[in-house]
């Protein structure tokens, strides 16, 4: 690991100006991702600014009846939060399906969103990777790509975003609040993460020195009828092959409204807007769920090793929506 400086300042604006002057500096929150990547030599910031005590570590109600989650709230605390469990169960379920208890105790809400995408070649400095070393080539496209993207990938990168929490928050219309050199902004979570395009080195739209301070959830009532289903190769402590977060509002057997997001399929949490559109106003039925899933997955482009994700994603969408339609009745 390259030697680096460690800083901790007292306020948000001081921190932002500190890091603005350090082009190779990075924020440190729980450290569960960046410290690993530093040990591997994948990231080598020359300065870490500890922001863990800088942003709120509590969950509070907002004026419009939604909730605001401080960026420093740990994954384990957030999963256990009563409001989240009752009003946004998909988020609690997603958090509890992620990583291990030890990691969830360290990882924060802001840090979880900013995990780097996951790929064995990105993590191995001895192989080409456009994300790590722009222009060096993508090793995964013709290599080991069983865990890689089927949607929204590019010829430069086929990595997937690893977060479970972010998938649930994407389904539930979250906003990400940031402070940066240019002040505060409120970003729909769907816009936070990027598709790789020709700049796979950029995982998000955040500018250097822009700090996530909170995540806000809207007061949408039917989000209490939401769930997260994660498919993985073992019962715990594994990244999703495919995951689905969904919420559904059903009345008299008709879908009034629905939210669907997919994990493990793209460079970002994938909001399944086409499937949502196809379902609004339609009767609840397995056939309709299946048809909607197939519409969403029409654009899927499998690689040599991940074609299984298409039927898997379809099946999990159908199953999750079927479960929600039964439970939400």
């Amino acid at each position, binding site marked *: *690991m*390259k030697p680096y400086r460690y800083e901790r300042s007292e306020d948000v604006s001081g921190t932002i100006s500190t890091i603005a002057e350090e082009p190779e500096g990075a924020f440190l929150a729980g450290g569960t991702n960046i410290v690993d990547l530093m040990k591997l030599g994948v990231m080598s910031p020359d300065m870490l600014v500890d922001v863990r005590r800088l942003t709120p570590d509590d969950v509070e109600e907002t004026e419009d009846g939604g909730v605001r989650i401080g960026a420093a709230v740990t994954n384990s605390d957030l999963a256990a939060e009563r409001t989240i469990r009752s009003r946004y169960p998909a988020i609690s379920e997603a958090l509890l399906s992620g990583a291990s208890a030890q990691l969830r105790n360290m990882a924060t809400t802001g840090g979880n969103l900013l995990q780097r995408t996951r790929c*064995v070649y990105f*993590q191995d400095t001895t192989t080409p990777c456009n994300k790590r070393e722009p222009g060096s080539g993508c090793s995964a496209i013709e*290599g*080991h790509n069983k865990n890689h993207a089927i949607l929204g990938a590019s010829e430069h990168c086929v990595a997937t975003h690893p977060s479970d929490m972010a998938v649930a928050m994407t389904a539930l219309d979250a906003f990400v609040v940031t402070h940066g050199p240019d002040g505060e902004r409120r970003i729909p979570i769907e816009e936070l993460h990027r598709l790789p395009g020709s700049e796979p080195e950029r995982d998000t739209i955040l500018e250097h020195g822009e700090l996530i301070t909170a995540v806000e959830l809207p007061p949408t009532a039917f989000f209490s009828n939401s769930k997260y289903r994660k498919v993985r190769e073992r019962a*715990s402590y594994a990244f999703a092959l495919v995951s689905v977060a969904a919420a559904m509002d059903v009345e008299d057997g008709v879908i009034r409204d629905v939210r669907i997001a997919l994990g493990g399929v793209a460079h970002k949490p994938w909001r399944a807007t086409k499937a949502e559109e196809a379902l609004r106003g339609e009767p609840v039925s397995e056939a309709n769920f299946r048809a909607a899933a197939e519409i969403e997955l029409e654009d899927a482009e499998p690689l040599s090793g991940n074609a299984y994700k298409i*039927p898997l994603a379809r*099946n999990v969408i159908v199953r999750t929506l079927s479960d929600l339609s039964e439970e939400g009745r």
Partner: protein
Amino acid sequence: MTATQAPGKAVGAPISRVEGGLKVRGAATYAYEHRLHEPVYLYPLQSTIANGRVTKIDASRAEAEPGVVVVLTHENAPKLASTDDKELAILQSGDIGFRGQFIGAVIADTFETARYAASLVEIEYDENEPDADFRADRDDLYTPEQLNAGFETDTSVGDADGAFDSAAHKLAATYTTPREHNNPMEPHATIAVWDEDELTLYESTQGVFWTQKTLAPLFGLDAGKVHVISPHVGGGFGSKGLPHANVVLAAMGAMLVPERPVKFALTRHMMFTVAGYRTPTIQRVRLAADENGKLSAVSNDVVEQTSKIKEFAEQTATSARMMYDSPNIKTTHRLAALDVSVPSWLRAPGEAPGIFALECAMDELAIECGLDPVEFRIMNEPENDPESGLPFSSRGLVECLREGAERFGWNGRHPTPRSERDGRWLVGSGVASSVYPVYSMGGNAATVRANSDGKYEVEIGAADIGTGTWTVLGQIAADELGVPFEDVEMKIGDTTLPNASGAGGSSGITSWGSTVVEAVRSLREKIEADHGGNIPEEGVEATAKMPKNPHSGDFAMYAFGAHFVEARVDEDTGEVRVPRMTSVFAAGNIMNAKTARSQFMGGMVMGLSAALHEESVLDTRFGHVVNHDLAEYHIPTNADVGEMDVSWIEEDDPYVNPMGSKGIGEIGIVGSAAAVANAVYHATGVRVRELPITPDKLIS
């Protein structure tokens, strides 16, 4: 605390491991933890190409880093006295045989400095295209002279091909098992110290004398000049049996900094490069039976992998030679020599992949014959060993199958696949047999000392790799001495003790235990003859070598077992869960009911792991394993392991050794993967012949 055992009753009792308290308190000293004066830390340089040679190493930036003591490369490395073993003869030239091979090291005051400085060393290569593509249709497969443990490469009894062609029922299928890497909790670790012409190694090893005898000739030393110390080992699973190049690198490094201890532990990543692994196998199995289900032909043609720099030929098909009664049995082994690291032992080399294929094929043929898989196995039970013609010293397979069926609730099972479900879960059950040879290894000696206070000391350079050796050898000695277990103190894990074989091939207790028994008998004779039956004031000791087993050559000696597994498969996702396993073993006299249960269960879990999780993915373009950490290379979590019902039958075998025991370290892993695969088939109707059985292979 250990309960006091009445004299003569220690063997078999569920005595807790004597070093358990030390381990729980963190006070058991593992290799890396020995406190020595002013240690330095070694971090290796590893090749990033798979084939070629180093043309230039520029270490100037590393050497300039404060805290760096020395950079070791092939340009300044000590010349080894023997370079026959190309895996171990590192840094003797710039040649590279596989990706990840050691090409140097940085030694520094701290681990962090050594690791960082290693990243500053600039290396240039002359690179050749690597050949790492393991396939059965390569035209350069070759026939090794012999297999691991000295087995014959090819065998043929009768006419398996002819019998297959004319059979009423037959099954021909290809099964594959992947490359798997040993990952004990404690990675390989060494502290090496040179003092004049003596080398001391604090080492995590399955055999201190194996390490001594391998290292001494490399450095041109008499064996007595290499002192190996290894009291506690955090698992090995074969990878700490044959010494690997990490020990040589540590010793070379230490040579450059005389008298200073050099510490070197492999990282988890490095465990996937230099510490051995199980070869992938491609097994073409053919079974044939007559109209009643009596086997008429058994054959297994195996293709597996070795390294171009050193041959390792896994004995994958040997169990097909002796498992079931058939007049026609044929086995072959062919190797692909590739630009890859050297395969080696991984728990039950040979039996684990071989029995997976054979026992899946037996399941398939039972179904083809319309027979219950348990009954099909029982009706093909041989009278004598089909390979040697010798009688078995004991063979408890049928009893294990019957007992296991009873415990598991097999009887009444609906034979049709996909006939049971629980919500979205498809539920099935599967069975498979297990076998492991009774090995003993030569060269053992033990010393037993009687003190006048009635306490005894037993010395033998044996190894405890988490298996219970500290405890079990004490139990054996205590009973043979006729004294309470607490009155015996063991000393193991050091080359200053009497010579011992290593922990491998499940041979430890047979080899060391027989020797301890012999030493106790010698001591008793000595006390009787020289001291009138009384222990003198100054104490008395006797040393004995391992006696030859008078029955070897008269019997075929094996342990057996049967596994029963319930598997559940989510029909939407292909996720497989195994809520329960029942395994019954016939492994002679069980020395310690508690440590034995742990070993059996550990093997069963490892078989479950092989069935559902483990696979080292090699990228042929680069020649290395790309999923080289435990986030990507999966093993079961606690949540993946359900109810484990472990038991054994009473088996009295007077021929195997004086204790009547059979090795139990490996048999648990043998067959358990097949039982899982057979249960997945029964649940889903989908036959997966390529391990591991991951959701992508079941989803539709």
